[in-house]
């Protein structure tokens, strides 16, 4: 009986760990979504800045005020931002891969334990029947 209890507890712990991983995966997805959105917007801005070239004043909204910016500097800033976003996306990608690996490992472990538990239950029943 103790063995069955221990198994049950272990199983619960495994399930909790699995859920924690799932939460991390979800968090990763949300962060990725946000970065993808930012990437899209920044790419659009960069294209527009390229179209306007050197002529045409560039302003940036800082708080409630529009502040005049150097066109070249603005372009460099947006480019830097894009690079940062790309590196963040790459980081999230590798993180997700590691999480998914961990998830399948946990999943395999859990199904093995469920099998063990079923086996234990069967043996118990057999013992009861023969007794």
């Amino acid at each position, binding site marked *: 009986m103790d063995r069955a209890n221990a198994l049950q507890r272990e199983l619960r712990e495994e399930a909790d760990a699995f859920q924690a991983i799932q939460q991390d995966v979800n968090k990763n997805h949300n962060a990725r979504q946000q970065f993808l959105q930012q990437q899209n917007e920044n790419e659009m801005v960069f294209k527009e*800045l390229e179209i306007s070239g050197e002529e045409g004043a560039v302003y940036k909204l800082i708080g409630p005020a529009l502040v005049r910016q150097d066109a070249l500097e603005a372009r460099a800033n947006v480019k830097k931002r894009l690079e940062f976003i790309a590196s963040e996306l790459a980081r999230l990608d590798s993180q997700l891969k590691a999480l998914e690996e961990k998830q399948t490992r946990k999943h395999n472990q859990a199904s093995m334990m469920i099998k063990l538990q079923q086996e234990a239950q069967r043996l118990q029943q057999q013992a009861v029947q023969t007794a």
Partner: protein
Amino acid sequence: MAGESVGLDSLGPQELAEVGKQLEGEINGFIQNALTLQQTAGKFAAAGQSVEYLQGQKKGQPLLLPLTESLYVSGTLESVESVLLEIGTGYFVERDLEGGIDYCRRKVLLVRDKTEQLSQLIKSRQTALAQVNALLEQKVGGQAGQA
């Protein structure tokens, strides 16, 4: 998502119903998005028309600026040569009128393009949903026959 139709046969009625519900939720979300896109296209088109209208005006033209829906203050057109475009992430760019009109036109085209893509996506989800529902009916009917 592509693997979804492969495993559909092996799902039980309850799971099928869940998949159907999920698809329905997705479709509704997409329809909302499509509506927003359409409104956005309309806004850009209206903005483009305003800039076009500005083309026919002269500097110093008197006008009334709306502060609220019912309160206007008088002013004059200071510049009919350039407009300030909001291009995203807080950046604004000064362009001549043609540039402004061109910008609005390009945005309208972009948004229409995305709307088209989205409606394709909605269509594919709807066929998937129909598939799931048909299969569900088949399974439930089969069970009733057996019982």
